[in-house]
């Protein structure tokens, strides 16, 4: 085998290897990690929103209203969180 032949074969092998590495990296850990990430993102925003509403209700004495409003704002924030991280994943 001549030197040039060997070089091209080496190049092809290297390309294959790097492609395979790229695919493996994308599929394995990061995608499962991303799936775990999505699940809590939604819930935590709702919880934080409700807690903020509860605290504001206590300070202002407007008992049921702010907690209801902030609950729904928290739901919206959670959905936006999920959409954002889903968009990040697709990059």
């Amino acid at each position: 085998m001549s030197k040039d032949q060997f070089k091209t074969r080496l190049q092809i092998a290297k390309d294959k290897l790097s492609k395979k590495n790229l695919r493996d990296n994308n599929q394995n850990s990061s995608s499962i990690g991303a799936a775990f990430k999505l699940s809590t993102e939604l819930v935590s925003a709702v919880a934080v929103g409700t807690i903020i509403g509860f605290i504001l209700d206590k300070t202002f004495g407007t008992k049921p209203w702010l907690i209801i409003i902030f609950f729904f704002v928290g739901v919206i924030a959670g959905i936006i969180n999920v959409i954002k991280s889903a968009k990040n994943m697709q990059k």
Partner: protein
Amino acid sequence: MAANPMTQFEVYRIGPEIKIGAFDISFTNASLFMVVSSLAILIIFNLGSKKNSLLPNKLQLLAELSYTFITKMISDTAGSKAKPYFAFIFSLFMFVLFCNMFGMIPYSFTVTSHIIVTFILAAFIFIGVTIIGFIKHGFGYLRLFVPSGVPAVLLPLIVVIEIISYLSRPVSLSVRLFANMMAGHTMMKVFGGFVISLGIVGGWLPLSFSVALTGLEILVAFLQAYVFAILTCIYLNDALNLHH
């Protein structure tokens, strides 16, 4: 064997009771396992980086592999600006990983299955990242809460939503790790209890489940440490490269 699957999460005192004012700072089993995992990290990485031979032994290989793994993760998610924070993210990842992995040893204690531990970790990250953001960008960091291209009518609502989603970061970070660890360990204990109560006749099915769950839990232990570290990188990225 304890019938209650939650007894494995009990924190009890080891040694004498130490009190400072109203705070009980006695040495518990939780503190013991934190010390054990920190010592294990120190020993492994000291031995691994002692001899820089060209042909690495297993410890050196482990240390080098984890080094490149974390470096790649940081540069992929947070860019080159995040390099000074390598030490913090590396120790964070290793601490969570070792705590999770030590929890997989039978009769040991899983530190990360307590929400107070994970929440303190997440709160420190949250506060630190916020401080870094304010140092790097001044009050311009508040632009994070005002996305571009939003009509002025909707702006108050959007800002409130953005603030809530920002505040939800430490909660989601800590709850994710805590819930995964606690649910997994409880499930393993429940299936272990089934093996005992069904005896030699019917115990084989839950036993095989237990074996499969152990493998799954080891995967989850690694994955949760990875997710914890990568989310820290993402938050750091938001603070360092402000673009909206």
